[in-house]
C-alpha cells in the first residue's frame, strides 16, 4: 500500500510541528496543545499502521492514548490553574523560580 508512506509522512510532519511548537511557544496552554498535536500525530501513525498491518492492536492503542491524553489534560490544566492562582500568569517565561 503505497499510501502508508503518505500517512506516515503526514503524521511525521504533524509530530514535528507539535515538537517545534513546544520548543518555541511561551504560553503553557499552547505548549500543551502542541503536545496534544504530537500525541495525535502518533495516533494517526498507529491508525495507519493498524490498517496497513491488518491487526487491531494499533487502534486499541489509540484508544488508550486518547484516554490518557484526556487525563493528562485534566491534570495539566489543574496544575496551570494552581500556578495561575499564585503567579497570575501561565507564560513559561514566568516559570523560572527554580533554576541553576
Amino acid at each position: 500500500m503505497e499510501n502508508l508512506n503518505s500517512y506516515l509522512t503526514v503524521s511525521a510532519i504533524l509530530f514535528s510541528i507539535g515538537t517545534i511548537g513546544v520548543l518555541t511557544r511561551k504560553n503553557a496552554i499552547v505548549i500543551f496543545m502542541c503536545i496534544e498535536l504530537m500525541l495525535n500525530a502518533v495516533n494517526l501513525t498507529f491508525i495507519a499502521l493498524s490498517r496497513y498491518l491488518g491487526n487491531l492492536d494499533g487502534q486499541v492503542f489509540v484508544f488508550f492514548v486518547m484516554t490518557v491524553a484526556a487525563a493528562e489534560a485534566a491534570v495539566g490544566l489543574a496544575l496551570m490553574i494552581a500556578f495561575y492562582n499564585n503567579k497570575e500568569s501561565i507564560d513559561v517565561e514566568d516559570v523560572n523560580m527554580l533554576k541553576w
Partner: protein
Amino acid sequence: MFDNVWLIPLFPLLGFLINGLLGKKIKNETVIGGIGAFAVLCSFAVSCMTILKLLSLPGEERLANVKVFTWMTCGNFNADIAFLIDPLSCVMIMIVTGVGFLIHIYSIGYMHGEEGFYRFFAYLNLFMFSMLLLVLGNNLLLMFVGWEGVGLCSYLLIGYYFHKKSAGDAGKKAFVMNRVGDFGFLLGAFTLYWFMGHNFNVWTIQFTELGKNAHLLPTGGVVTVITLCFFLGATGKSAQIPLYTWLPDAMEGPTPVSALIHAATMVTAGVYMIGRMNFLFIRSPETLMVIAVIGACTALFAATIGTAQNDIKRVLAYSTVSQLGYMFLAMGSGAFAAGIFHLMTHAFFKACLFLGSGAVIHSMHHALHHVHSHDDAQDMRNMGGLKSKMPLTFLTFLLATIAIAGIPGFSGFFSKDEILWQAFANPHHGQLNYLLWGMGAVAAGLTAFYMFRLVFMTFFGECRITPKAKDHLHESPMVIVIPLIVLAGLSVVGGYIGIPKLLGDLFGGIPNYFEHYLEPVFRLSEEYMAEHAAHGVAHHSVALEWGLMGTSVVIALIGIGIAFALYVVNTSIPAKFTATFPALHRAVYNKWYIDELYDYVFVNPCKALGRFLWKGFDVVVVDGVVNGVAKVVMSFGGIIRYMQSGFVYDYSWSMAFGVVVILGYYLFK
C-alpha cells in the same frame, strides 16, 4: 683467650646509663665524676690485661675475634656484635682508655660547678663506649656504629653549652660534616660488600675475612672507588680537606672535650680506619696518592690558618687538623705504622696542650668572672705572663709544645720525622714525593712557629689581662694538674718506643718496637707493596736521610726563632706586618673564607632549593595541579549549572536536541 674483652666497652656504657639516668638525682659531683672516671679506669685495666695477654702471644697469633651475639642476619648478610683483638686495636684501646681516663680525672676539676655536670660525664662515658666500639668492632657495621656514635657524642658535647647559639651551630655542623663522611663510608661499605660477594662469593663485612680475601681484589678500578669512598668518610671524621671546617668550630665544647674527642681520639678514627683496612688501600695507588696529597695539603693549609688565630683553642684546633694531615700523609705513603705512631704521640702531646690551655682558660675565666669583666677568656691577646702565675701548667705546656714542634728527643720528633722520611722515600708517588716532603717540612716550620707564638703570647711578656683580675689568676687544683703532668711525661718519653731505624742504629741497634709490634697487622700489605711498588723501591743513602732529618729540625728551629723574634723580642712587628699585608692577614685570619665558601656553594643553595621546592613545586605545581583539577571541574560545574536556566523551553530544546542527535547518528551513520 680474650673472652672478657666485651667488658671494655661495657664499663663506660654502664657509667653512661648510671650517670645519664640517675645523675640528676645523685647531684654529688664527686660521686658522678667518680663513677665516670672509674668506669674508664676499669676499661683501662681490662685493656692493659688484654694487651699484656696479646704481647704474651707469638706475633702471628696476635689476632682474635670475640663474638658476643648476632646482631642481624638477613640472607647472606650477617653482622655480629663481635670484637677484634689485634695489635692495632690494642694500641688504640690503650690510647683511648688511658688518655680518656686522664681526661675524666681532669674534667672533675674542670667542670666543677657546671649545671649539667652529670650530663657531661654521661656523654663522656657514652663517647668512650662508642670510641671503643669503633676501634674494637670486628666488622664494618660495628665500626660504623662506633663511628656514628662518636659523631653523636661529639655533637652532644660540642653543643654542651646549648644555650649558646654558636655551640648549637657548631655541634650541628660537626654532625652534618661527619654525615657527609658517613655517606662515603656507607657507600664504600656497600660497594665492597657487593663487589666481594657478587664477584667472588665472599659475602662478608668482617675485617679479618675481608683481609683474607683481599688478594682476590684487583688493583685500582673498583677498589679505588671503594677506598675513595672510605677516605671520604675519613676526611669527615678526621677533619681533612674538604671537610675540616667543623673542627675549629667544635672548640665551642668544653676544653676536656676538645682534648679527648677533637684531639686525641675521635678525630684519629679516620686514620685508624685506613690502618684497619690497609689491605684495601694498598690495592689502589690512586687513592693512596689522593690521601697523601690531601694529608699534605691539609697539614700545610691548616698550619697557615693557625698562625693568625688569636683564640687559644682555635690555634690548637688548626694544629690538630694539621697534625692529622701528617697522619694521612703517612697513610698515603703506605707508612701505616708511622701514621699510627704519630696518632699515638699526637694523642699525648695534643691532649696535654688542650688540657693545659683548658687550665689557662679556666684560670682566666675565674679571674675575669671575679671582676665581672666580659673579656674573652680564650683570647691570647688578653693573656701573657702567665708563666709565673701557673708554673706547672706552663712547664707541661712547654714540654708538649716542644714535642709537637719536632725538637729532637721529644716524642713528636720521632713520629714526625718518620712520616716526613716516608713521604720522601716511599715507592708510590714518584716525583710527587719531593713536593709532599716539602709541604710537610714547611708545615713543620709553621707548626713550630704558631705553637711557640702561642706559648709566648700566653706565658711570656706582659700580663695583658685587666689589672684588677690579675690577682685572681692562680694555678689550677691538683686534679687538673696531675693529668697534665702525666701527659707531659708521655709527650716526652712516648716517642722512644718507636725510634726510627737510623737513630736506633746510632744508639746501638735499638729496634723500632712500635713498628715491630704492629707488623702482624701490616705485614701482608707491606709485602704487597714491595711487590707492586709503582716506581720501584728507591734506595736512598743514609746521608740523605740524615740530611732531611737535619733540615726539618732546622726548619722547626727557624720557626721557633721567628716566633721568639715576633712575640718576645719585638712585639710590634706582627702589627706592622698586618698593616702591610691587610688582605693576606684578613684572609688567613678568616680561615681563607672557606666557611663562607661552603655556605655560598652548599648551604645557601640547598636552603634556596628547599624553599623553592616547597613554595614553588609542592604548593604551586603539585598542589596547583591537584587543586587545579578540582577547580576546573568545579568551574565546569558552574558552567553546566547555568545551562539549567529554569525555562521550560530550554529544557525541551535540550531534549529535542538529544533526540535529533541520537536519531541522526544512528540513521545516517
